[in-house]
């Protein structure tokens, strides 16, 4: 296929399908696998990671990052000065206010989808699914980009104990290999510990016997699916070792005290342990932000916990020298209406809301975008999910236009032409 003029595609889609398939066939690997090692190798060495604090149900931007005190939409809380001159956030976040220097606030999200399911799908993936293509979420993409194939730790962990909005993540066309290790029942993952009725040595012997069947079967057979089977079993031992990462007994009493005793705090501390051990993506889902009634009580109760846990995490990462390689995101499926309803609640609102990015690759203490005086609409720097995701990828050193291949079709990480927000990138 030769290049032709007048085509509505960017340059990097012009790779010849035939050439590509030919090369893949010749090297005995699939089109999908061939791409894996090209860019990812160097990144993996740099050990970049993401901790996502997912505020399920939709946290209010007005009670967090974009307060409007005094406006008719403002609610009862004041704003306070942060460590960045001229930047004020809600008084419910005093701790973050004092250490905003690693955090960038984006106040200009207009993501257009104010439905829990659709919004969560969008904000987990950075785009809407196509008719016949289910996209991978951020965790699955980072598992693939940043995880090592023989890693002894999981490459995507998702804490999601509450039921609200739980089922919107997923690895889409990347398949089960890059899906999350899901913690939906308790603080330790399923099937990580050896069953009681088998001794450690028998467990190892049994695995060795399995490996011998595997070696014999692989003679004269090459397939990436077959390779993944061997790899999956080879990772079992290492992953079982990683169970200790989920045990907070491994942390000093002082550290545990700093984070605090709540479930959210403990999960975030585990997330820090996981990232420290090389896990590229951890999501901690914290639900019940959907404050259609009693918005202010809800946020008065929940924002200070977020404030405390998030700042403790940032400080902890900083002291361990990990913050420059760890990106901490706070994100929801959408924000909440500036208008206050008759139940003193705020409803779903996707036209002008906020999120934050801290640490790896971003300019700390910065604010991007602006909403009007009431918070009704974005007046400066409007971005959607695509640009946010391009910014996240760029902050991690990943090319947002990198292609994956679904069959012969190139699918870039973000839609063609999507620009990252350069103003917030370090």
């Amino acid at each position, binding site marked *: 296929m030769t290049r032709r003029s007048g085509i509505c595609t960017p340059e990097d889609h012009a790779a010849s*399908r035939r050439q590509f398939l030919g090369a893949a066939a010749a090297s005995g690997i699939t089109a999908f696998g061939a791409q894996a090692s090209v860019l990812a190798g160097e990144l993996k060495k740099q050990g970049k990671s993401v901790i996502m604090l997912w505020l399920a149900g939709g946290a209010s931007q007005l009670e967090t990052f974009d307060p409007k005190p005094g406006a008719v939409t403002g609610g009862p809380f004041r704003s306070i000065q942060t460590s960045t001159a001229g930047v004020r956030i809600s008084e419910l976040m005093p701790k973050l206010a004092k250490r905003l220097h690693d955090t960038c606030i984006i106040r200009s999200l207009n993501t257009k989808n104010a439905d829990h399911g659709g919004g969560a799908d969008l904000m987990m993936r950075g785009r809407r699914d196509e008719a016949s293509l289910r996209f991978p979420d951020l965790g699955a993409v980072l598992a693939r980009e940043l995880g090592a194939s023989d890693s002894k730790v999981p490459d995507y962990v998702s804490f999601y104990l509450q039921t609200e909005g739980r089922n919107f993540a997923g690895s889409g066309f990347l398949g089960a*290999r890059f899906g999350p290790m899901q913690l939906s029942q308790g603080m330790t993952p399923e*099937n990580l510990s050896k069953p009681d009725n088998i001794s450690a040595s028998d467990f190892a012997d049994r695995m060795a016997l399995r490996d011998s069947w595997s070696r014999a079967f692989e003679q004269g057979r090459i397939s990436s699916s077959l390779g993944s089977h061997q790899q999956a079993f080879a990772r079992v031992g290492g992953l079982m070792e990683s169970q200790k990462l989920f045990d907070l007994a491994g942390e000093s009493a002082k550290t545990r005290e700093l984070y605090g005793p709540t479930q959210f705090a403990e999960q975030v501390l585990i997330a820090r342990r996981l990232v420290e051990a090389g896990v590229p993506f951890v999501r901690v889902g914290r639900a019940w932000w959907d404050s259609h009634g009693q918005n202010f009580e809800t946020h008065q109760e929940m924002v200070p916990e977020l404030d405390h846990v998030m700042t403790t995490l940032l400080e902890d990462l900083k002291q361990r020298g990990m913050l420059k390689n760890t990106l901490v995101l706070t994100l929801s499926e959408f924000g909440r209406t500036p208008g206050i309803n008759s139940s003193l609640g705020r409803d779903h609102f996707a036209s002008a809301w906020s999120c934050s990015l801290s640490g790896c690759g971003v300019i700390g203490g910065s604010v991007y975008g602006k909403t009007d005086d009431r918070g009704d609409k974005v007046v400066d720097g409007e971005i959607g999910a695509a640009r946010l995701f391009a910014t996240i990828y760029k902050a991690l050193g990943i090319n947002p236009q990198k292609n994956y291949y679904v069959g012969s079709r190139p699918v870039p990480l973000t839609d063609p032409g999507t620009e990252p927000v350069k103003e917030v990138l370090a």
Partner: protein
Amino acid sequence: MNKRIEPLWFLPLLAVFAAGLRGADELVLPPASMSIPAVIDQAVEAGWKERGIKPASPADDHTWLRRVTLDLTGRIPTVPEVKAFTEDKSSNRREIHIDRLISSPAYVRHMAHELEWYLMREKSNSLLAYLNRAIGEKRGWDRIFRELMVANESDAATKGSSAYLKPKVRDLDRLTNDVSVAFFGVNVSCAQCHDHPLVQDWKQDHFYGLKSFFSRTFEVGEHLAEKEHGVVRFLPNKGKEKEAGFMFLTGTKIAMPGSSEATKDQQKAEAKKIEEWKKSKTQPPAPTHSARARLVELALSANDRDFFNKAMVNYLWYRMFGHGLVMPLDQMHSENPPSHPELLAWLARDFAAHQYDISRLIRGMVASKTYALSSRYEGGSAPAANEFAVARLKPLTPAQMGTSLRLAGMATVKGDLDKKIEEAERNGRGLADQFPPLADDFQVSVTEALFMANSKRYSGEVFPEGDDKLLTAMMKAATDDIRAGLAVQSVLSRPARPDEMSLISHYLKRHGGDQKEASRQVIWSLMASPEFRFNY
């Protein structure tokens, strides 16, 4: 999404439409009277000869039997079946065995499951009851297509058929593309956004033309209904909003009654009818002129049915051989030609000429020598997948895994074989749910390995005890060699090789403190082997 920046992969889509049905007419096809396996082998062997390819050796009997049993009935062969087959010395025993499998009830259930996944792509099982009936009664693929499109719930024969359209009808764009992919092998979602810049024939009109056939369909309560009126309007990439005609992918247009705007009175009458339907909670009657029924007519008409004929042939080929004659399956167009054009054209013609009989087509595929090649390639690197010179590894589906794991724990089968198989299917469902569905470039996840290694639930289900069970038989056996033979026979459906016998015997001796636990460990290792995980 910006409509101007669709990726280049769409480019090739189209020339097929320019080419129309030319393909089949220009090729010189083998005579219609030849058998399916003979045509397959002739076409594939011609390719090897032309390109100097040496195929793999034929698979041995045990491998072939396991392969064909999994492909036709969704589970591994049982110990008595292996014995009966390998002891049968008749020259046509493979053909006899294929016929036996295809006429078994397990074949119907398996094919229903396979087609459910193909059509629905999610685990809903909502279409299973209908598909079981349709396949059990040997309905042709054309009839199944018609019944799914017409979705008449009032007729006992087609009850359950509306489960195909119902979950999709709220998103007509998606429905349009799903139908196009499943029944015509073409992903048309590209043309939703823009005309193709190169091929004059392929415009947004094609996408919206196909969508038109579904645009009158909507839900009334639990039921599907179709209006007498309605057209699709869309905003083209360039120019003003326009009305789409009722047009098939080939460019053939039809005139549909009700394409002019409904009058006020008509609208009123329709609104009243809809209110009545809502109240009655029964299936609304079909309209005088059903657009969906017209689509079926059009897609199956002599000049326009090439898409329909080839899409299913290619899909079944993909399932049996592990790689389509056209890949990807939803890119069946002239810029992406089949590896074996004459073969695909002949099979498609044969499929149509024999009432779209799926079983006949599958029977022909699995009876070929090509199907019966080994998946092992010795001496040099293996030929490309589209040469079909070496069998591909096919990961077991969740249902195949669940049922096979249950059957692997059995040393023999007492009583009615199909009852036992049905029982294994039922009991294996919980296990099946733990394994991921098939995907392109399927990758086994570590979650699966951890499940097999550590889950109490898994170990509670795969080592049953009882008269006919493997673990019990191993405990009763006199020697470790016999135990080794039993384990390999039950789990891997073949006799143990000498090196395996000695490895297992040695293992059992070394772990002899608890014979039962040691036997479990041996069984575990075999079930966790790639030989079990794949249909090879």
